[in-house]
């Protein structure tokens, strides 16, 4: 789960990670009030969406007067912001963050995530602040300094020194930088973060290290013990059908093809997409109905797949293990009664009681159900039916 910049900065503040003063605003009037109460003579108006690249897309602007704040707030609130991470359809801006302007002397990048190979977190820093880190990693990997932090010992001084010297920091910068990094490590561990990215981290004119931007994502499996984080969830930032699917215990991801897929198990679901492509078609989605595959979940699955107008055929691919195929077949018949399924449905059931299952489907007399022998046969028939 991801959160907005203003929410991440709230968390930072609570942990003593320095951030500029700022206030979130949902209307132009609130934005003006926020700027007035912050005071000063320079403000930043920042669109709050989950995608990165907001600045380049025109979602982050500087204001030198209160009138400019009003103008920019009016311009950015309600705009559809397109960045390299939103896709061409962009994202509607529903809230903005008004922040005091900063005196930037130097810009850095600082990030933290899980190093899967090392099985512990890694902190990464770079002097190339403001640049996309993937690009830096590709073009000038020597400019990224990494240090693994073993949670058994926690963040030690040497971790900080390794990063600080790696960045080539001056003597007087090292102390404040290490203090910043140490606080950030605590945020990451305490909150079960999956990813923290500060880009840029700045050194201000008066020698302070400040997080000018903040991006945070969390381990979904750990949200149960973080009700405060769960409260920050912004469902408007997520794909509505994916959210709906999740509420019903389904895992759904929309794709661009026309062959809908309903599968049990994530690996088999991915493999089903692959074989559709292999047979010359394009998958319309990833959908894992989980271990149960009962009439209700199958019906919900059909409903969600059919919300996508591109879908011209559905491939149901179930490998029955503990769940018997005859029960799944009955589930599919039930489901067609609950939901109107108006496209051909190719059904491949294999595993426990597969023969009984195909008998049930054959006898049902439902015209648009096409039984398949095996994985390859099913994929072929589904691709054909979608043409």
């Amino acid at each position, binding site marked *: 789960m991801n959160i907005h910049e203003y929410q991440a900065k709230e968390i930072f503040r609570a942990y003593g990670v320095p951030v500029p003063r700022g206030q979130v605003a949902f209307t132009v009037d609130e934005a003006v009030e926020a700027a007035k109460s912050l005071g000063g003579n320079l403000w930043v108006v920042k669109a709050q969406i989950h995608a990165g690249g907001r600045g380049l897309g025109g979602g982050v602007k500087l204001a030198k007067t209160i009138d400019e704040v009003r103008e920019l707030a009016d311009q950015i609130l309600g705009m559809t912001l397109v960045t390299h991470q939103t896709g061409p359809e962009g994202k509607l801006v529903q809230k903005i963050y008004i922040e005091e302007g900063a005196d930037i002397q130097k810009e850095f990048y600082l990030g933290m995530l*899980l190093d*899967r*190979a090392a*099985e*512990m977190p890694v902190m990464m820093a770079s002097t190339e602040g403001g640049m996309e*880190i*993937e690009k830096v*990693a590709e073009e000038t990997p020597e400019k990224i300094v990494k240090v693994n932090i*073993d*949670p*058994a010992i926690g963040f030690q001084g040497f971790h900080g020194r390794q990063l600080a010297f790696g960045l080539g920091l001056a003597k007087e910068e090292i102390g404040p930088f290490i203090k910043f990094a140490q606080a950030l490590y605590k945020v990451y*561990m305490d909150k*079960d973060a*999956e990813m923290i990215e500060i880009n840029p981290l700045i050194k201000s004119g008066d020698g302070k290290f400040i997080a000018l931007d903040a991006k945070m994502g969390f*381990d*979904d*499996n*750990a949200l*149960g*013990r973080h009700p405060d984080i769960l409260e920050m969830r912004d469902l408007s930032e997520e794909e509505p059908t994916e959210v709906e699917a999740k509420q019903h215990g389904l*895992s759904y*991801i929309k*794709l661009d093809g026309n062959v809908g897929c309903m*599968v*049990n*198990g*994530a*690996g*088999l*679901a*991915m*493999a*089903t*997409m*692959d*074989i*559709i*492509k*292999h047979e010359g078609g394009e*998958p319309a989605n*990833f959908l*894992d109905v989980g271990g149960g595959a009962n009439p209700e979940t199958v019906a919900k699955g059909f409903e969600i797949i059919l919300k996508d107008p591109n879908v011209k055929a559905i491939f149901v691919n179930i*490998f*029955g*293990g*503990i769940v018997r195929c005859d029960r799944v077949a009955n589930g599919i018949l039930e489901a067609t009664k609950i939901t109107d399924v108006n496209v051909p449905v190719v059904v491949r059931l*294999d*595993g*426990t009681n597969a023969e009984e299952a195909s008998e049930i489907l054959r006898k049902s007399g439902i015209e648009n159900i096409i039984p398949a022998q*095996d*994985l*390859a046969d099913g*994929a072929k028939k589904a691709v054909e039916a979608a043409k």
Partner: protein
Amino acid sequence: MSILVNKDTKVIVQGFTGKEGTFHASQCIEYGTQIVGGVTPGKGGQEHLGRPVFNMVNEAVQATGATVSMIFVPPAFVADAVMEAADAGIELAVIITEGAPVKDMMYAKAYATKKGMNTIGPNCPGVITAEECKIGIMPGFIFKKGPVGLISKSGTLTYEASNQVVKEGLGITTAVGIGGDPIIGLSYKQLLPMFEADPETEAIVMIGEIGGDLEIQAAEYIKEHISKPVVAFIAGQTAPKGKRMGHAGAIISGGSGTAAEKMAALEAAGAKVVVSPADIGKAVKEVLGK
């Protein structure tokens, strides 16, 4: 022969008396697995499925001589259960539970390693030695005895692969579902040498997916150390970048962890890489020259 577990392996179940634990433990017993007892704190002294229940893993180990634990406790308690098993001298913990926080697994695996305990999973179907010992939630009847070792991140794809292998008139020595979480126990790199050393295993099937670099590590290992033929399939060739495909670890991040790079690495290492998941069985038959 086989790897990791066989008909003599003594197994306890942590989370024995819960709904999942009860259902799957009884399925394992039916398959022939020596489930010698279970652990549910507060229910020590009772009997369940005709086996003794203990409060603590160390009591269960002392009383039964179990060396393997199958773990079904709820996600929030997985790390605790794994560490308790490691502390009690269990040699292999098979963690079935889905949804354990990554941070917990980081601590639990580090401690297990320190104590010399192997782990499989979490969020996996378990391990099965065909017609001898099933420790997990897979449908046992699909796994007929034969010359093929199987390592897979995905549950249903494991069943699919085994089914195809059996339909070709072959069968399985041991199948290990390693799970698709960001931090997992035994992986390809540790399991490949076990299959290489197992005289009954003549070919190895490895099924991977997008995300992380375990398959790349496996490719490097295969190139140097594996003489037996390897058939590989990588799921997620059509998966979009930055989207999590069901498994917590199945995500292409920053352009790395794609199916294409894994397939290329395995191919270069001499593995037979199949593009279609329907061709796994045929490819195994081909590499075995049968």
